[in-house]
């Protein structure tokens, strides 16, 4: 029977299948961070269990880590206690940890691919919803809760039901200044925050095939924002070229065997998807969000919508609540919205290519005097690479702040937060109320829009800068 890519990966990991029960799915890689794991380790200890496969488990510190004074002890005692708990737990159970200060430290979804631990055809989980990022390699990767973290630690498996299959096909050439972030924001605006519920999304089409691995990760990363369990992209030469030579990538004859297998990981010609969505890449423009969920987005050429125009009562009420929280008036051109802070970083857009795109726009210019810009690399390695290329100087000479690696202002578990009422243009993934700090207001944007916005202090498309 013809299968989709996701079905092939799923079926290859079924340990046990029985009528009336969920399948038992083997997990090839379990990524762990400090926030969603302490209660799971406590659960193991309480039950007298151990970690079945510490060699398939990798931990790092990312959510709580400060991006200034990174070698000093964490000032916030609660954050510090959580990070210390991870250090104790990983030491006790023999799990490799990339702690603050380590060259492999960084956002969990940045370091997996960077180390070559993320490979095509694998099953990957983490107690973090943005685990879908790893699907960019053709892996089946999804976020789990703390009870499931405990389950994977104990058994290296998870009970699962096979998800439904959705194809999101993006054909055509992306116009200049339009990026993967704009594609995924447009997808979410089209299908809604619940449109992907119960599905794994396979992104395909000529526009997707042309994307770099970094861009593919941006797209898969935000699958969860459409409600999907996971998002993935078939591995190809771009994938293999990215992986070759990375620390945990196969070598020699193993490499050849792996590539031979990876090359089979494609959706069969006559496989059937349960749902299909099509997007025309040539019609896309930079996209920004105006509301408080990632589905509330529009092309930057648009105006703040009038809630009265929404046909569905729930959508209308949601728009009213969003505009009130965001302090926006219907009819205002999105380009007239002034921001206080620009955040460039996160597991969505904190990789080297994202920093390069932003730096190119900022080179030789100064950011707006009333706007602060935080640049937070996704990992220590991304930071080092950027510094080798001189990007750090481009940012600081433009007036931006160059920080240490971590999740930072994406969710403000460290000191990088918006003040109440403060407004940001952010390359992160969630514009939820208070996400970046109590009372903070977030507009999700691409790295290029973030940089252009930093220069003008208002939501700005890169193309607007011509002649500025």
């Amino acid at each position, binding site marked *: 029977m013809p299968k989709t890519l996701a079905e092939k990966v799923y079926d290859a990991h079924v340990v046990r299948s029985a009528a009336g029960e969920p399948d038992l799915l083997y997990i090839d890689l379990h990524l762990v961070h400090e926030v969603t794991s302490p209660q799971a380790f*406590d659960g193991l200890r309480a039950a007298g269990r151990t970690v079945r496969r510490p060699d398939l488990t990798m931990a790092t510190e990312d959510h709580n880590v400060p991006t200034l004074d990174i070698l000093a002890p964490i000032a916030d005692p609660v954050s510090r*206690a959580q990070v210390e708990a991870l250090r104790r737990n990983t030491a006790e159970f023999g799990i490799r940890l990339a702690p603050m200060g380590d060259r492999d430290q960084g956002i969990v979804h940045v370091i997996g691919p960077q180390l070559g631990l993320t490979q095509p055809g694998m099953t990957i989980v983490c107690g973090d*919803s943005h685990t879908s990022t790893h699907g960019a390699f053709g892996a089946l990767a999804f976020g789990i*809760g703390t009870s499931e973290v405990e389950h994977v630690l104990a058994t290296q498996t998870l009970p699962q039901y096979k998800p439904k299959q959705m194809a999101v096909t993006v054909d055509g050439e992306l116009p200049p200044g339009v990026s993967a972030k704009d594609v995924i924001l447009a997808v979410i605006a089209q299908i809604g925050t*619940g449109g992907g519920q119960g599905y794994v999304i396979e992104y395909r089409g000529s526009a997707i095939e042309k994307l770099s691995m970094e861009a593919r990760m941006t797209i898969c990363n935000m699958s969860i924002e459409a409600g999907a369990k996971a998002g993935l992209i078939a591995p190809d030469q771009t994938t293999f070229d990215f992986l070759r030579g990375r620390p945990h990538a196969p070598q020699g004859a193993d490499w050849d065997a792996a590539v031979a297998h990876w090359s089979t990981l494609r959706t069969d010609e006559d496989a059937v998807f349960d749902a299909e969505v099509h997007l025309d890449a040539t019609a896309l423009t930079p996209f920004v969000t105006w509301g408080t969920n990632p589905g509330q987005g529009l092309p930057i050429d648009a105006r703040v919508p009038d809630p009265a125009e929404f046909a569905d009562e729930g959508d209308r009420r949601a728009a009213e609540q969003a505009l009130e929280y965001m302090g926006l008036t219907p009819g205002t051109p999105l380009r007239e919205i002034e921001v206080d802070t620009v955040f460039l970083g996160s597991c969505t857009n904190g990789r080297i290519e994202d920093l390069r795109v932003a730096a190119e726009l900022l080179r030789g210019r100064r950011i707006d005097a009333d706007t602060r810009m935080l640049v937070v690399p996704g990992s220590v390695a991304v930071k080092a690479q950027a510094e080798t290329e001189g990007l750090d100087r481009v940012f600081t000479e433009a007036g931006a702040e160059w920080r240490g690696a971590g999740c930072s202002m994406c*969710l403000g*578990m460290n000191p990088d937060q918006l003040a109440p009422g403060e407004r940001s243009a952010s390359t992160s993934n*969630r514009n939820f109320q208070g996400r970046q700090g109590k009372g903070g207001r977030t507009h999700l944007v691409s790295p290029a829009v973030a940089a252009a916005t930093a220069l003008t202090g208002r939501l700005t498309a890169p193309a607007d800068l011509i002649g500025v």
Partner: protein
Amino acid sequence: MDAFTTHTGTAAPLRRTNVDTDQIIPAEYLKRITRTGFEDGLFIAWRTNEPDFVLNRPEYANASILVAGPDFGTGSSREHANWALLDGGFRVVISPRFADIFRNNSTKAGLLTVVLPEADVEALWNAIEADPALPVTVDLQAEQVTYSPGGGRSTTVPFQIDPYTRWRLLEGLDDVGLTERHLDDVEAFETARPAWLPRALPAV
């Protein structure tokens, strides 16, 4: 996990769509390393900033069933959201649509999620707004929600849940223990995994 068979309590109407887990409990509460005591963070921003927020109203203070709009529990995978609802006295959340991870976490934590069509949620909202003291019964055994609006004829709305999850919740069974019965299968699977698959530990 506590077993769930049937629950009768009062219900709070949360007339909002897209209630994400950042609203259920913000990230600052996630720094704790305990598994209980999260009730102080439950919907804290709305409780603080909106005097009329439904859970600030005394008539809903003791509600144990939350009735919400579609796409409840979106966003972050934090199981702390499920723990906060349980710690805050809720045993059941009813919504037309739940985010997958939230719903899955609920089945592990012992919080029952019930999917009802939007029209039934609207009817239930109207009933509990008219009479906040109205008892609502959620019967997992019979897979139905029952209430008697205005003291009149009883309304019964059936719901569906997959039989395996229903059995686990009714018995209060721990997933890890169930999986451990099949460790032979896991071992057999492991012997067949390709040797080139990555290991996180550097080779010794």
